[in-house]
């Protein structure tokens, strides 16, 4: 329990997300928490993981976390940098990416993601940044990992706007739309790990972070969240994982470092 006590929920979230990546993955990296998780993986158990940012930077190895999707660090440490139309056409749509790593403003019980508006599109109460690369990341990567803090505001029964299609209304909805990829297979939060039910594709809790109780997760979820038959406890961050993450955060611009 020692390691847990002195690690923040955000650190636990990033570590748990990082562990999902392997050396075999070619990962399309979103900015913020996904970028932190992907680079932690690269700096710990998956030194050969291939990281790609939508700015066109292929096989990049940033020494610090980028603030933007196109920071100088990304191009300077990349194997090569291609034009943006090529990135989306040949590399993403071309089906060369194994994992798309996304954040979310809202995610619903079927893994659909909203980063466009809170409220109605025509008269939004909050205008969010919008789609960026996410819609096609969600449809073209072999699978999608989502990393997001868990609150009733972010975990909603149904998103206000489907920016990135997850499992739609569940079941075989993706296949019915002609989408060939697996979609969201993993959602890592500051409390737990959720995965889609094999049949209904509803997100269910498969692992609780150390010290987190089911009631807390239920309270932070906007729908009556279900738990897998066997719910595991997420292994706490190792001293090494924590040290590498904290070094990475410490040497990055404050704004780029997840708090």
């Amino acid at each position: 329990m020692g390691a847990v006590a002195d690690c923040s929920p955000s650190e636990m979230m990033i570590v748990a997300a990082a562990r999902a990546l392997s050396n075999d993955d070619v990962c399309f990296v979103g900015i913020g928490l996904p970028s932190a998780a992907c680079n932690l993986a690269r700096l710990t158990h998956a030194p050969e993981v291939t990281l790609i940012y939508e700015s066109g930077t292929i096989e990049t190895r940033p020494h610090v976390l980028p603030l933007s999707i196109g920071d100088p660090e990304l191009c300077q440490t990349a194997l090569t940098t291609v034009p943006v139309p090529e990135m989306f056409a040949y590399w993403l749509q071309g089906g060369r990416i194994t994992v798309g790593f996304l954040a979310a403003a809202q995610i619903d019980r079927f893994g659909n993601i909203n980063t466009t508006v809170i409220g109605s599109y025509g008269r939004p109460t909050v205008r969010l940044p919008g789609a960026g690369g996410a819609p096609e990341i969600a449809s073209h990567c072999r699978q999608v990992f989502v990393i997001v803090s868990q609150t009733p505001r972010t975990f909603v029964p149904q998103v206000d706007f489907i920016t990135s299609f997850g499992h739609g209304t569940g079941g075989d909805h993706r296949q019915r739309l002609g989408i060939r990829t697996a979609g969201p297979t993993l959602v890592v939060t500051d409390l737990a790990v959720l995965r889609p039910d094999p049949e209904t594709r509803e997100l269910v809790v498969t692992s609780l972070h150390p010290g987190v109780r089911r009631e807390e997760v239920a309270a932070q979820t906007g729908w009556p969240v279900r738990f897998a038959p066997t719910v595991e406890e997420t292994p706490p961050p190792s001293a090494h994982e924590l040290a590498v993450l904290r070094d990475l955060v410490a040497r990055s611009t404050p704004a780029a470092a997840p708090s």
Partner: protein
Amino acid sequence: MKAAERIRRQARLLSLSEAVAEYVRDGDVVAMEGFTHLIPFAAGHEVIRQGKRDLTLVRMTPDLIYDQLIGMGCARKLIFSWGGNPGVGSLHRFRDAVEHGWPRPLDLEEHSHAGMAQAYAAGAAGLPCAILRGYQGTDLARVNPNVRFIDCPFTGERLAAIPALRPDVAVIHAQRADRRGNVLIEGIVGVQKEVVLAAARAVVTVEEVVDDLRASGPNAVVLPSWTVDAIVEAPGGARPSYAHGYYGRDNAFYTAWDGISRDREAFLAWMREHVLRSGGGVRVPGSA
């Protein structure tokens, strides 16, 4: 024989004010591109100083440059795919215009990056539309009538189609131009080649005008002088974004912009101080 004149441009070396006055017109569809890198802030500030109005602004990532143009009331419409302050949060002037119509209402045409990048490529390629496997299941296709679907004539697969983007004028920033007006772009090259070739007019600001372009290798990204109308020497013209090989991104200013832009009065005061009163249009705090 005179067909040439209709399609062949010839880059002229102009001052920033001359280039913007001649090539950016009220009511134009204007695309100032640069994907995080090489954002043409100096040119954007000159557009604000010259008080251009009713612009349709086109940009994948509006970024601070369009937050400023929108906040100063230059735009009536925005065509975009991601409108945030990268890694920081909201573009508050963009939000204020969309949520409260201040300083004026802003029409939106919204795409994904993939769609918009291919729409620029289609514009450069002289096609009326781009096709992609995209927008499946998203509400973007529901709210944007410019996202339609066609069937592949061979497989029957449903494909998204978007109209080609063909701005009236493209404005970009690049590292160098030679004295003939050939332009070199290096690093994150984004959609700059596409937007220049897709647009009816093209203005390029550069860090320096040189005798030798110093292109790295035979396949460097070069825009020939006959694809560009105006070259403007504007050192630092991409600040607070950056120019690969010249200066880094001013992440501190991007972070500070969140506070500056949150409040209408604070925003206007900043613009008066740092843009309207500035001649060169390249003075931005934190870019020392």
